[in-house]
């Protein structure tokens, strides 16, 4: 995976009622192992999966996934 892609999935999970990895996996339609790989930045999700994850947390995709070592694009 491109190491320039990072994410805030773990932080967002804890901010949303300490959601478990399995809960998030069930809501977006993937396995728990995929969520683990995502949080470890070992896997780059498809656009569809990225949008689903953002929808679960009710944020924009750019608030979940970041390019270039976590630098967020200012809105």
């Amino acid at each position: 995976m491109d190491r320039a892609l990072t994410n805030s999935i773990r932080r967002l999970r804890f901010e949303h009622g300490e959601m478990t990895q399995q809960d998030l996996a069930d809501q977006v339609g993937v396995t728990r192992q995929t969520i683990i790989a995502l949080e470890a930045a070992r896997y780059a999700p498809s656009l569809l999966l990225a949008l689903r994850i953002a929808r679960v947390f009710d944020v924009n995709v750019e608030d979940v996934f970041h390019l270039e070592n976590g630098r967020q694009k200012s809105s």
Partner: protein
Amino acid sequence: MPQQQKLAWFTLSVCIAVAVVYLALLPFVGPSRATAAFALMAAWAFAGQFYRKRPGRVNVDERDRDIHAAAVKVAAGGVYLYFVACSLLMIYSRRAAGTVPVNWLSNMVWFGALILLASWSIAALVLYRREAA
């Protein structure tokens, strides 16, 4: 462990079992009859159990499909190289005779199937391990 990763371990186990039984039979019954070991590959018929629907759980997701696609590419390359190697071996070992025994061809096909399954499972396991590390 993802279901597909379990399938990869199961497939690799079947391939190793087939190879071990073939090598064990080889000195006693010869290469042609030792191919009876490939009957063990019928165990792979149970592979469908790994994809059985589990209520409330995702069996195969996009990451599994990506790993499967990458592993198939590796397996295809491995099988191609295997058949090229077999062809060259036959050419250089049977050049003087001008013919190839028919049982060589059947053995080549059986081992090709073994190489295909083993390559796929090893590639999948390496990819799963790489993403989990």
